[in-house]
Structures are given as structure tokens and as C-alpha cells.
């Protein structure tokens, strides 16, 4: 399947039906997740603010997941110099930046009533801010270099350097004393929460993933068309 998708024409044929399909799946999962979300009772400690968890945790998870996608695409772009890998990396960055921004903002809105502060230079919060800066840096570097090939190479190297930050983000709550709570979803021994919270949370995580899949495919398609338009314009000019 991977081999088939490496061909741009096959990718365009695949993504033509896959992108709307992922979009519909995302909508259905998000609707189901929100229905269960607002039926869940307030937490005995956090009260109604527990509802922020259903939009914050998926955004935080996606901020890391999308960076892994960006890193893999950048590696393939750098090593194999494949146009689709470059397009995939380019397409992932703004989506990852969006998810990371959401994680930071919703986290801040959750932190104020539960921790008593909007922001603290805690290892988890700081490393997620660094992740956000890596996304912005990737997009800025990509846009700053006129030669597209050089821009893609430089941005891919930056993306690979940024991969170092991912384990820091993930394990920051384990390695250091942190105001941020430890992982309650991806942990040894299984998730540490009752089903009434776990079900809507998982539905929202999968909804965010499907939504990312749809938008990623749409943006890669846009990149393929952009390159085709540039080639056609060059042909017309010569």
C-alpha cells in the first residue's frame, strides 16, 4: 500500500475518497464523544472543569503525534528526496502547530481553576511550548528560503532535530517534579480513569486523529496541485 501511495497519481486517486471518508469518521466520532462528554458527571475534585480534559488531552496527544508524522516525512524527504514526502512534511506542520496551540491554550484555561495559575515554567508546559516553537520555526524556515529544494532540506533537518524534544515532552512528568499531572491514559497498567470519562476521551482522541488524517490528505493534495501548477507555469513560460 505504501509503495502504491508513493506514486503521486495513485496518491491523488486514493486521497480523493479517503480525505472525505476520514472527515465523516471524524465528525461521527466527535459527535459521539461530545454526547458522552456532556453526560459525564463533574469530577469529585475538579468539578465541571473535567470537561476541558476531553478537548485538551486529544490536542496534546496530537501535538506529539503530528510531530512524529512530520519527522518521518522529513526523514523520507531528506533521504529519498521524494516529492510526496516533502509535501507531507510541509502539510503536517501547520496542523501540528494548530493542535499544539490548542493544547497550550486549553491547558492554560484548565490550569487556572485547578492549579491557580494560567502558566508556570513547568517541564511539561515548557517543553510543549518548545514543540510549538519548532513547528513555527519549521514553517518560517521553509518560507524564508526561496529555493524550494534547499528550503525543504533545511526544514527537514530542523524537524529531525526537533524530534529530540518529543521524549522530553512525553517523559517530563516522570523525569522531573512537575505541577502537571502524570499520564493517565498511556501508562503501564492501563488508563487511570473511570469508563464514564475514558469513553468520551478515547472517542475524542480518535476524532482528532481522523480529523488530522482528513486535513493532512487535503493539504498534501493542495501541495501536489501547487507543484503541478508551478511546473505548468514554467512550461508555459519557456
Amino acid at each position, binding site marked *: 500500500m505504501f509503495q502504491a501511495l508513493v506514486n503521486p497519481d495513485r496518491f491523488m486517486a486514493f486521497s*480523493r475518497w479517503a480525505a472525505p471518508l476520514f472527515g465523516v469518521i471524524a465528525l461521527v466520532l466527535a459527535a459521539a464523544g461530545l454526547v458522552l462528554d*456532556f453526560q459525564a458527571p463533574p469530577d469529585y475534585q475538579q468539578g*465541571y472543569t473535567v470537561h476541558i480534559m476531553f*478537548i485538551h488531552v486529544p490536542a496534546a496527544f496530537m501535538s506529539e503525534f503530528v510531530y512524529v508524522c512530520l519527522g518521518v516525512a522529513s526523514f523520507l524527504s531528506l533521504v529519498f528526496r521524494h516529492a510526496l514526502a516533502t509535501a507531507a512534511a510541509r502539510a503536517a506542520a501547520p496542523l501540528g502547530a494548530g493542535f499544539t496551540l*490548542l493544547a497550550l*491554550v486549553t491547558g492554560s484555561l484548565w490550569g*487556572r481553576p485547578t492549579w491557580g495559575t494560567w502558566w508556570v515554567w513547568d517541564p511539561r508546559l515548557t517543553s510543549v511550548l518548545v514543540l510549538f516553537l519548532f513547528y513555527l520555526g519549521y514553517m518560517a524556515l521553509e518560507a524564508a528560503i526561496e529555493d524550494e529544494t534547499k528550503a525543504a532540506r533545511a526544514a527537514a533537518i530542523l524537524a529531525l532535530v526537533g524530534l529530540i524534544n518529543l521524549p522530553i515532552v512525553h517523559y517530563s512528568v516522570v523525569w522531573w517534579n512537575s505541577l502537571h499531572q502524570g499520564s493517565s491514559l498511556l501508562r503501564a497498567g492501563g488508563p487511570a480513569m473511570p469508563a464514564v470519562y475514558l469513553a468520551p476521551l478515547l472517542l475524542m482522541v480518535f476524532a482528532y486523529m481522523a480529523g488530522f488524517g482528513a*486535513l493532512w490528505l487535503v*493539504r498534501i*493534495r493542495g501541495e501536489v496541485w501547487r507543484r503541478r501548477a508551478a511546473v505548468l507555469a514554467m512550461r508555459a513560460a519557456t
Partner: protein
Amino acid sequence: MFDFDAGRYALFVWPAYAVTALVFAILILDSLLRARRWRRAVEAAKPEAPQ
């Protein structure tokens, strides 16, 4: 039974949902408009429509 009574936490919960909706709306619109723009550029440069 739905529970939308956020009480004293309304100032934190609803802005979080509003920001989420706004960022998703921006990402969806930007992605679709960007793709449509370049598709039209290809169509304008080439008579046969791309996939």
C-alpha cells in the same frame, strides 16, 4: 441527560471549547481553500481537469 451547567467554571470551560472550535474552523477552511486555489491554478493552466 446533558449537563451544561458549568457554574463558576463557565469562564474557563466555554472559552476552551470556543477556542477549539475556532482553531478547527481555521484549519479546515485554510486547508480546503488552499487546495481549491491550487487545483484551480492547475485547471486554468491545463484544459483537462486533474483528479
